């Protein structure tokens, strides 16, 4: 009875349009699923048995990507309850921790997976260096990887301001203070004032939209954190994964 019903469902046009092949429990379907699924085709169909060994990659790259997915998921949840307004932001976060169902957990998860991602991306880079995996033909993928590390740090840093508490305000004040020391385009940097840089037209002013960290800075960091940087890092990840599939893996993979 159930068998017949299952067969009826599998034969419908709707099912057939969704799945191009049967359940992947034989060689043919195990190959087809890797070809026909846009997400799965990041993988090859087959890999060497030795590639399954944990101690070569230690899952560091994969877990970095997983952290990004988890951060996207929890981040979207947080966005429903957050307004980037200096009068509201802090209270939104307070509400999240006390009044919103699962709000505290989502915030904690977002925070700790962000810290984990920073650490994992670093560790992944260390592993790739130690196993010499950046050598030809994968040189450019290493360059993309360095960019992804930079984006990861910037994402974490821009998110640091959003709770709008003392920790956030002053950490970002310290950080952006550095920007005014940029040579040529910061007013406190070498050759800055000679080139006409003032406190209200230099690179720091551009970054925080004012002379102190305030409403404009919060809005800028919010947009960078939730839109601009995620788009950039996603583009970088797409290239990173594409290139490693096309250039081939190093070593036992």
């Amino acid at each position, binding site marked *: 009875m159930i068998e017949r019903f299952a067969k009826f469902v599998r034969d419908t046009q709707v099912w057939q349009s969704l799945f191009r092949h049967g359940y992947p429990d034989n060689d043919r379907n195990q190959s087809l699923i890797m070809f026909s699924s846009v997400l799965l085709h990041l993988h090859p169909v087959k890999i060497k048995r030795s590639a399954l060994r944990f101690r070569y990659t230690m*899952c560091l790259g994969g877990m970095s990507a997983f952290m990004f997915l988890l951060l996207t998921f929890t981040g979207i949840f947080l966005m429903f309850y957050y307004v980037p307004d200096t009068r509201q932001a802090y209270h939104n976060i307070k509400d999240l921790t006390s009044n919103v169902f699962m709000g505290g957990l989502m915030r*904690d998860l977002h925070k700790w997976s962000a810290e984990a991602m920073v650490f994992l991306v670093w560790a992944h880079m260390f592993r790739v260096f130690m196993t010499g995996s950046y*050598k030809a033909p994968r040189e450019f993928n290493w360059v993309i990887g360095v960019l992804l590390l930079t984006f990861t*740090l910037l994402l974490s840093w821009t998110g640091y301001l959003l709770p709008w508490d*003392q920790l956030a305000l*002053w950490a970002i004040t310290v950080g952006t203070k550095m920007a005014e020391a940029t*040579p040529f385009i910061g007013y406190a940097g070498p050759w800055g004032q000679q080139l006409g840089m003032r406190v209200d037209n230099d690179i720091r002013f551009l970054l925080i939209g004012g002379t102190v960290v305030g409403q404009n800075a919060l809005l800028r960091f919010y947009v960078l954190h939730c839109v601009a940087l995620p788009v950039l890092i996603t583009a970088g990840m797409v290239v990173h994964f594409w290139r490693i599939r096309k250039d081939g893996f190093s070593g036992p993979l």
Partner: protein
Amino acid sequence: MSERHTTENIYPRNQKKSYALMELVKGQGFQVRKQPEDTVFVWPHLLYIELIAALVFLAGLLWVCTFKHAPLEDMASADTTPNPMKAPWYFLGLQELLVFFDPWLAGVVLPSLIIVGLMAIPYVDINPKGVGYWAWKERKFAIWTFIFGFIQWWIFIIIGVFFRGLDWAWYWPWDDWHKHKSASGASLNDMNVILHGWGLDAVAADWLTYLLVIGYFVAFMVLPALLWRSFSRQLGMARYVTVWSLMALLWLSPVKVFLRLGFNIKYFLVTPWFKL
């Protein structure tokens, strides 16, 4: 019955014939123009590992969330300045460098050079050995250089996180972190002032500091070529210059820390535009 035996039964070997059925292999698909290989299907073997790793990691994170909550202090206020002001932990290494360098170097130029230097690695490493496995012996120079930089980054972070308290002074874990430390007794001097104190004419002392700094970079450019000739020739001009100018910068922080702590030197070069 073994597979070999089955094969023999189906197609007995005939010594007079130049062809024979070699082996039957279990499987459900065709193997056309394939070498014998030790591979497995990604579905399910690798996907299971990925799923398990993700679940284990998620479980670990959820476990952390049960006892450690994301910090939230008082609402941001421009009226109260915390002491010390600390950047997020992953940037505390750079903030710690502010003790030794001016902000344009510690906050802007050195981080940018770290990024550029990291990107340059695959293009200056011409050693073809050690790809795809954990190798020490075949890549000593590359690995020591990388670890030298990596350790610097982490040491400065650890100092910034665990040993810097009020007024960014050095605090041991057992110190009273609520009590201000008295300013250090040693007074810092610039290199040209020290040289002037030794009896050199002020202008000559200035010039000497310029020469010393230029000499530092020139030494990194010249000495390796003399010490490791064949290695330098293999590298070629462009790679050689890139490697050793980055190496000079990699040594900049340790040298500066050494001169500061050992000889109380604040800047070793003072120009009208910047100080180093």
